[in-house]
Structure formats: structure tokens, C-alpha cells
């Protein structure tokens, strides 16, 4: 239903007699709310409320959800621990410790790659900064919950196995 009570006209015009008695306006207001009530009783399906755990809102493809680290074909992280993302991060939520890679073709790999999900503002700048497309926020997961602050700091293993379908 639309907002039928609102008009674009200025509201500081002089009140008419009927409006200053106020009672008639009360009745009109009751009619508006009563109409909504009756409509909603008989058209429960029209309400925008979602029964959340059972029903879930479909977000846009571009929605930035929980992060994931991309893997190479052999399963190692694509990340080369260049620190670009953690430097760029406005919330300072990425912590990387680099280590020398055993593969001679690759210089470094992240020994530790932690993200504090409570600090993260989901701005996506790390995605932009990454030169090897190693970090993405495309999982679409928005149900980020835990029962202690420590559990919100997720590590490399967690991020590597974050999948777009929400399974780990």
C-alpha cells in the first residue's frame, strides 16, 4: 500500500475549522490504520515480512558477503602475500604473515591470513587491490554469527574453503 497520508504540499498552511477541532482528523487517521489492518488480515501474503530462517531474501550477484580466498589448481592459495589488501584495508582487518614458498616459481605465500569479520566493513577494497584475484567477497554469505569475539577472526583454512554456496 502507498503512503496515502503524505502530500508534497507545505504543511504550515492555516488549519481549517474541521482540522482544528481535531476529532474528525482522528477519525480519518483511524480509518487509514483500520484500512491497513483489514487489508492485511485478509491478504497476509501481501505483507513484505519474510519468515527469515525459512525464507531468505535473494541478494544481487554483486552483494559483498563473507570473504573467500581463491585456490590454484593444486589447491594452494592464489595469494602471494604481497600485503596490498591489508595495506589498502580501511578497517585494518586483514592480517598476513608471509613465508617463502617452496615452489621456485612463486616468491611468497601467506603462512597466516586472518580476517577479523567484526572489523571488516565489507567495502571490497581488498578485492580491488589484489593483483592476483586471490580474495573475493562473492560468497553471498551474510549470516555471520558466533558466540565469542575470537570466533569472528577467521583463518586461512576457513577462508580457502568458503564456498559461494555457503558450505565450507
Amino acid at each position, binding site marked *: 500500500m502507498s503512503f496515502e497520508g503524505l502530500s508534497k504540499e507545505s504543511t504550515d498552511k492555516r488549519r481549517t475549522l474541521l482540522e482544528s477541532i481535531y476529532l474528525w482528523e482522528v477519525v480519518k487517521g483511524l480509518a487509514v*490504520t483500520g484500512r*491497513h489492518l483489514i487489508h*492485511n488480515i485478509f491478504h*497476509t501474503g501481501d*505483507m*513484505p*515480512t519474510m519468515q527469515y530462517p525459512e525464507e531468505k531474501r535473494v541478494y544481487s550477484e554483486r552483494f559483498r558477503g563473507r570473504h573467500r580466498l581463491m585456490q590454484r589448481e593444486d589447491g594452494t592459495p592464489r595469494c602471494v602475500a604481497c600485503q596490498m589488501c591489508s595495506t589498502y584495508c580501511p578497517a585494518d582487518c586483514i592480517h598476513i604473515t608471509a613465508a617463502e614458498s617452496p615452489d621456485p616459481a612463486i616468491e611468497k605465500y601467506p603462512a597466516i591470513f586472518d580476517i577479523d569479520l567484526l572489523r571488516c566493513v565489507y567495502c571490497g577494497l581488498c578485492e580491488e587491490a589484489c593483483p592476483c584475484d586471490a580474495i573475493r567477497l562473492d560468497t553471498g554469505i551474510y549470516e555471520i554469527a558466533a558466540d565469542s569475539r575470537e570466533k569472528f577472526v577467521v583463518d586461512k583454512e576457513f577462508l580457502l574453503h568458503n564456498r559461494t554456496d555457503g558450505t565450507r
Partner: protein
Amino acid sequence: MAIVLESLAKIVFMFLLIMGMVPALIWAERKGAAYIQDRTGPNRASIGGVRLAGLVHPIADVLKLVFKEDIAPTHRHRALYALAPWLVMTVAVSTYAVIPFGDYLTIAGKRIPLVVADLQVGLLYVLAVASLGTYGIVLAGWAANNKFTFLGGIRATAQMISYEINMGLAVMGLMLIFGSLRITDIVAGQGGMLFGWLPMWGVVLQPLGFVLFITSVYAETNRNPFDLPEGESEIVAGYHLEYSSLKFALFFMAEYCHMVVGAAMISALYFGGYQVPWLPRPMLEKHAGLLLLIVLVATIAASLLFAVLFMRRVARERGKFGDARDREPKLGAGFWFLVAAAAAGALALRPWEIGPAGAGVFASLFQVGAFVGKVVFFAWLFIWVRWTLPRFRYDQLMRLGWKVMLPLGLANLVVTALVLAAVGSGK
């Protein structure tokens, strides 16, 4: 001894009526608010999957409040802090003593008036008890020793005093017309007909008085648009800010008890109380059989309708939740089919051949039902108004009370007195 038992039975009935209405009103408040605002409202709490459209939530609420920790400010006035919620609740409940919920009930040749205490000055008793209600709120505000609760208490005193006067003036018009302060007299006086077709209800005789009265009742119960003592946008939660657990529950319950009192007063004084319009008591007794038949058939029709609605959900929501809640439509349909079957079974007892004694009892119960129906409607009106109107500003509240309603109330009183003197019908 018999009279004690009789009074006790009436007190218990009245108390159960109020206490039964409180959770129902809490439910109506939440669900009504939600539907008015295009939301679904509470529908999660369930007992074995049965959610009763959110009616289980008040039970969950009570459990929560009972088991919550009772947190109290350290620098409170201990005695008064503990006393205040009880005072509020006591006052809220004790008003019911003088409100007649029916005319009389004849059991075994004994005529029992359906009112707990038929006071000669019942109308004034209501005003007096309502005025004592201020103390609970003020003390709660003061004893908690918090700026916001204190402001709430101060607001409550000024508001209550201002609107009590208007309330008194409004009902004085009724007193002039019916020539009595006894509420049973006033209700009985509203059984007649004006011009032979219009029910002689207070609202017809005193339309302005009714408007003034209902406004004052809204102010006295601290309900929106007059809930300034709570005013959560300005003073957090007002007078009950520092209360938690069961003490808060008492305030919460008292608010709804006040609502039921207000609704009962409005219906008793201005809407004929237990009087059924166009169906005076003798008519009710004469056509008891027919009316009983109509009631039963209506029950069957309504419960079949509900059952069909539930059946529709059975097909539509099969396995929607994947837990106990999926059983609910089937249970609901079954329940309403059972009700319909029970009513049909009652129909088989040939209720239209009801005897004169049964007819009397039926007439009494019908009138009690009419009263309860009116109370429920006006209680709902409280909720409806709350979710429609914005809150008054404090200066607006005072201006309305003293500069608009007080002169109107006085004018109403004078005009009523003049008209009565001219007609010469003031008893």
C-alpha cells in the same frame, strides 16, 4: 455466609475476566500494531508447534519476566520502590468493584445482582480510586532516584490532576440526567429508547460529555496520545525505567488492567453497559430459545469457516517449516471442527424449548456477553488509537486539558442542567 460466597464468586469472576483479558490485549496490541504497520507481528513462540497466531507469546513473556534478574538501582528509596508497582496494580484492579457486568442472575429463585459492590456513590468511587493511581506512578518515579523516572513521575502528577477534573465534569452531566451516582442506576437508565428507536445510551444523551470522558480516560490510563509519563522518545521509559523482572511486569499488567477499566467505564457509562440495544430484558427472556438457536447456528457457521480456512492452509503449507509447526493447520482445523460438532450436539438437545428459569439464566449470560463484547471493543479502540495518533507535546497536553476541555466540560454541564430544568425530567 451465602452473601460472602456470592461476593467471592463475583470477585473471582471479575478478576479472572481482567486477568484473562490482559494477555489477550497484549497479543492484540502486538498483532494489531503489526498489521496496522504492514508487518506480520509475533508468530514464533509455540507449544508443540501450535502458535495460535502469536497468542503463545504472552506466555513466553511472562516466563521471561518471572525468571529475569531483578535489577534495582542502588540509591533507591527501598520501601517506596517496592511499594509502587503493587500500588499501581491494586488501584487498577480495585476499580472493577463497582462496575456492573450484568443485570441480575436468578439461580434457584435467588436474585443475584451482577456487580461486586453496588455503592451509592459508585461513580465517585471510580474517580477516587483512579486518582489514587497517581501515587504508584509518582512514587515509582521518585523512589527509583533517576532523572528520567522522576520526570515521568512529575509529568504523571500534573497530567492526572488536569484530566481528573475533566473526567469528573464529564460524568457529572450523566449524573444530572440519570439523577444518581450509582453506576447500576445509570446503566439501568440506559435501557430505554429515545423517540422509540434510538437506544437511550449516554453517548446519545451526552455526545460532548462522551468525547471529553473518553479523552480523559485515555489521559488517565497514560495511553497514547497521552503517554507522556512514559514518553520513550524523550525520557527513555519514564516512571518504570528502573524496574525489571516481576516489578516491571506489574506495571505492564497494570497498564492493561487500566485499559480494561477504562473500556468498562466507557461502555458502562456511555454505551449502556450490559444493555443489548433493541433487546430489553423481557424480550431476551421471551425469545431466549430463538436467540440461543441463533447463537448456536452462528457458532457452527463461524467455526466451520475457521476450519475451512485452516484446511486451505493444510494443503498450502505442507512441509513448509519442516518441524512441529507443520502440524498446526491440521490441529486448528480439527479444533474448529470439534467446536462445530459440539455446537451441533448442543443443537440436538432442542435448546429452543428452554424453560423460563433457563431463559432467565440465558438472558443474564447474554447481557454479560454484551458487556464483555463492548469492553473488548473499547479496549481494542485503545490499541487502535495508540497506533494511529502521535504523542502530544507537553504544553499541548496542558493546553488541551485546561483551555479546551475544562471550559467545554463546564459548558456541557451547564447546558445539560438548563435543558433538564426546561424539560423538567431530571429525576
